[in-house]
């Protein structure tokens, strides 16, 4: 986060070469096109230590990642990280030992969660190699971008 900006940080998590796993990255890129400066918008692979670093010092963090929970593709889950633990097995595509859910829980153990951390999970359908989003996920990405753009605009208006 840079000084002189509202304390809001957007983090898109995923792998753009794994089809719907790129949903979080797509959201971050589209938001950056709308807000080219003045707001911290990050793309992350999902490696836990890097995530903890990314949200350090931020007041309000909104993180978007693809999930596979069994819901219908394109479903948007909203998890308030401060309110409840991350559901186990939600963000499990990473073979890394330490990813989104672990980063949130480790930060909670260390009392390093940002004051507001909302995790949005976009239900994916296809996680095979490829760079296309499934139609339902594409739609969810658009909904997500619109929703977050409103929140960012409100934060910017409030700040200036």
């Amino acid at each position: 986060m840079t000084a002189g900006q509202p304390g809001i940080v957007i983090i898109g998590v995923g792998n753009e070469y794994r089809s719907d796993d790129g949903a979080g990255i797509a959201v971050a890129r589209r938001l950056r096109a709308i807000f080219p400066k003045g707001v911290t918008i990050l793309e992350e692979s999902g490696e836990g230590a890097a995530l903890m670093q990314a949200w350090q010092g931020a007041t309000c963090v909104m993180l978007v990642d693809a999930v596979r929970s069994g819901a219908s593709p394109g479903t948007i889950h909203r998890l308030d990280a401060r309110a409840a633990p991350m559901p186990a097995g939600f963000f499990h595509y990473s073979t890394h030992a330490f990813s989104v859910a672990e980063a949130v829980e480790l930060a909670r153990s260390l009392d390093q969660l940002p004051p507001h951390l909302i995790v949005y999970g976009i239900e994916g359908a296809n996680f095979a190699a490829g760079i296309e989003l499934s139609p339902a996920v594409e739609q969810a990405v658009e909904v997500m971008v619109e929703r977050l753009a409103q929140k960012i605009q409100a934060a910017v208006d409030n700040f200036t």
Partner: protein
Amino acid sequence: MKSRTVRVDYLARVEGEGALLVKIKGEQVTDVQFKIFEPPRFFEAFLRGRKFYEAPDITARICGICPIAYQMSACHALEDACGIKITGPIRDLRRLIYCGEWIESHALHVYLLHAPDFLGYEDAIRMAKDHPDEVKRGLRLKKAGNEIVRLLGGREIHPINVRVGGFYKAPHKQDFSALAEELKWARDAALATVRWVASFAFPDFDRDYEFVALRHPDEYPFNEGRLVSNRGLDIAIRDYDQHFVEEHVAHSNALQSRLHERNSYFVGPLARYNLNFDKLSPMAQEAARSAGLGPVCRNPFQSIIVRSVEMVYACDEALRIIEHYEMPDPPAVKIEPRVGTGYGCTEAPRGICYHRYRIDDRGIILDCKIVPPTSQNQKTIEGDLRQFVQTRLALPKDKLQWQCEQAVRNYDPCISCATHFLKLQIESE
């Protein structure tokens, strides 16, 4: 006859996907299989037909934890093929970026993956509630290592600034000032890490291993040296294929390596330490001694201490290099390809990483071979478990399973690398 199975269907806290099966018949361990079912990744096949200078960036993608090892082994092998040897400040920068990788990889394993085993926690998240200061120290150490890789490599994961012949861009001396301050903190933190892990309780276990590592006349090994062992192996890197073989076994997608003449061997921090104790910096040697280690350590559970000693060394060495750094100009040696075969072997955090490339006169890769450290340790891991379980058959099943997982984690196995996930199953018939 009473038979049992100990089964871990998903071994956590390792990199990648795999499983472990231990079969026990009566009072005898009859079979141990370290299974790697992460799909094969065919890196060697898709390097064929690529230009020689693409190899460091392609092979970096084999691993998100140790990309530097792949980049370095690829560079050295291709420079060898082209008849070039890199010296001076570019060589120093390579050692420096390798220090960064050891620090970040070892800090992750010591603090977040292995320490919870010794302290009786299911994972680092639960451990952090009772040991917050230690976990914070581990995370900051990892970050210090990442910072070296970011500064020299352009970014922390899959760096983009390494090339055959050197670097695309070299940092100015003043770019290191903030990093040097953090590394002084990191060196103290690494010393504190050695003291912390030395206080853990270690199972009484050792075997008569053949340790294999690089050895260099002047320094603790990262990039160069001869391949040596405690049983008389002493060969040039280019003779690797004459002494080591890779075999496919039914239960693993990763090829298993063994020595032609003997059999399984042990690579990684313990092997490096046992074969190169005299080359550690005085501060690292002193840290090892005060932790109760002699110049040779055969208990793989104590590898967590050795990893911590190596963090001390890596911080110390990084500070030494930064202090004497003069910016290389140009940052890379120009390389003209020629027909030939080149060999490279460097010390990844988990042990030796061997690369061989054959190129044509236009620098096109015709054939290559990549042997990551975890595939070399597979047979040794199986051997450890066979002996370990045999003496602990009286343990309750859940405790036995826990200790088996801990024994596998002694090797910090990187399964993603080895196939270019882990489950444990102990079965009694």
